[in-house]
């Protein structure tokens, strides 16, 4: 018995050690990035990126402040797109999900299939791109950041529908209808308030997707004024690569006009792009995990 107990403790200790090492590995790159962002530029070029800065300087963050017109604009764009996108998404998702949960809605299975089918088959990126750009002329508009792919997805709709079906009793709706409430009133006064948990879950997933998105920017945006922070970072990296490939040729000089931020400053920009995720994540991770479990099991 005692032996058994010992071996259990040993096993637990081994698990703990491995997990602690894994945790350090997961977080270390962020430490390196932060450290690079507060290292003096000369030291950074001389010693490279290090986990502990040899010479601390906050010049990079001062640089970001000086560049607030471009960087700040991208940041603001990310906030607007994320906020507006998430809000719209939650509204249209739940409005689509509610009738599907109504047992007395005759066509609900047909509509559910229409939604479900989009989860299994898609036309691919090329067709999407041509339709959005040639028929809806979305290129270089604000809508390109908001609408393609991200605004609503079938999985969220079905998740919300399942929630309505399992947690909102028909009798409440029946009672409201007897009292003469209209469908819209039932939806706004009863359904929305009762479904806050699932709506919070899908808004977290959607918000995360909007904040982290760069593909819509990659495909549809060339106008710097419309860059979100991730699109800005992507573009910056592209210019750096361009510069690197050109400077190996002899004509590097004419690219000087690109005005690229220094090595440390790039990391500072990346740092402020993850900052909101870093700050919010500890508070929302419980909700997200619940969402993953529900979504993973059925969908």
């Amino acid at each position, binding site marked *: 018995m005692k032996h*058994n107990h010992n071996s259990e403790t040993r096993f*637990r200790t081994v698990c703990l050690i491995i997990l602690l090492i894994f945790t350090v590995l997961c977080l270390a790159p962020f430490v390196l990035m932060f450290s690079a962002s507060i290292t003096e530029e000369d030291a950074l070029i001389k010693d490279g990126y290090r986990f502990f800065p040899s010479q601390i300087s906050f010049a990079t963050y001062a640089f970001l402040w000086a560049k607030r017109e471009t960087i700040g604009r991208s940041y603001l764009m990310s906030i607007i797109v994320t906020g507006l996108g998430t809000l719209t998404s939650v509204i*249209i998702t739940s409005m689509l999900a509610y009738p599907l949960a109504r047992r007395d809605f005759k066509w609900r299975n047909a509509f559910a299939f229409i939604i479900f089918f989009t989860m299994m088959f898609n036309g691919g990126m090329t067709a999407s791109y041509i339709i959005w750009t*040639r028929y809806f002329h979305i290129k270089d508009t604000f809508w390109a950041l908001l609408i*393609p792919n991200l605004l609503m997805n079938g999985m969220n709709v079905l998740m919300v529908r399942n929630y309505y079906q399992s947690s909102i009793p028909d009798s409440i709706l029946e009672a409201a209808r007897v009292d003469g409430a209209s469908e819209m009133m039932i939806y706004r006064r009863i359904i929305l308030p009762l479904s806050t948990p699932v709506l919070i879950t899908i808004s977290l997933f959607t918000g995360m997707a909007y904040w982290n998105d760069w593909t819509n920017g990659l495909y549809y945006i060339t106008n710097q004024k419309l860059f979100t922070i991730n699109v800005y970072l992507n573009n910056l*990296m592209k210019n750096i690569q361009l510069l690197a490939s050109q400077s190996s040729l002899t004509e590097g000089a004419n690219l000087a006009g690109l005005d690229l931020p220094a090595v440390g400053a790039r990391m500072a920009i990346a740092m402020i792009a993850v900052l909101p995720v870093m700050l919010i994540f500890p508070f929302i991770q419980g909700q997200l995990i619940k969402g993953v479990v529900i979504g993973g099991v059925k969908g």
Partner: protein
Amino acid sequence: MRQAKGVRKGRGRINYLPLLLMMAPGLIYLIINNYLPIFGITIAFKQLDYTKGILGSPWVGLKNFEFLFKTKDAFIMIRNTLCYNLVFIFVGLVLNLAIAIMMTEIGRLKIAKFIQPAICFPAMVSIIIVAYLVYAFLSSDGFINNSVLKGNEISWYQSPQYWPVILTIVNFWKNTGYGAIIYIASIAGIDKSLYEAAKLDGATKMQQIFKITLPIIRPMIILMLLMSIGRIFSSDFGLFLQVPMDSGVLYPVTQTIDTYVYRSLMVLNNVGMSSAASTFQSVLGFILVLGSNLLVRKFDSESALF
């Protein structure tokens, strides 16, 4: 049946119009965002002429596909997509399960409350940020070249031979903690008395894992495996485009179907090739999803999608 209908009609109170109006925005979005591109698949069988539009462009049958499969690119991108996915799926499964079992083991310790979000965090940041992080390690003034190799510099972004390993590490770094969640949840659902009984019989920890935990969560494992096999022709676009910094030298080991579709459409401006590759991916993906779901239904009809 008829009676039920009669009753409903008799009450005659349900007016579908408000319900349909509520659904309208979402349905319109699905039609534009999802169904139009499905019909847009015809582009792959046409010689697209923008002035004539998709409908007006002439049909060319399978020409685009013929051209695509005559190139070396076709073999490379399909090989890469499949090989990376196989490693990601099977090694990933082992890692996810290992993390889930270890997390369950330390679940009652206070520190688990810190470890859990920390190991999930990499999955929460955009792949652009990940590319910057990798760059901080691998660039010419990166951590590896300056602090580890010290002088024996390797120009990572010019050396294809390392990238299968680098991309695999990055993938697992980003997804392992997050991927373990689903298994942590299913392990949490196992009846604790089973372990108590096993302990009384003198079962070791390893025996408990292999004789109790894994067999009980087997349906979940099979379900997750089949779902990922259904997606085996899709790749994480950002991982293969952004993390290697779009470096041309690396294409032989980093080109996947998704990056090919992007490059031929946006960089090379070759709609024919791009749409052929993209249609190939969608159609095979669809067949695999259907197939894997049929299998899921065989193993565990509760978990089947349809």
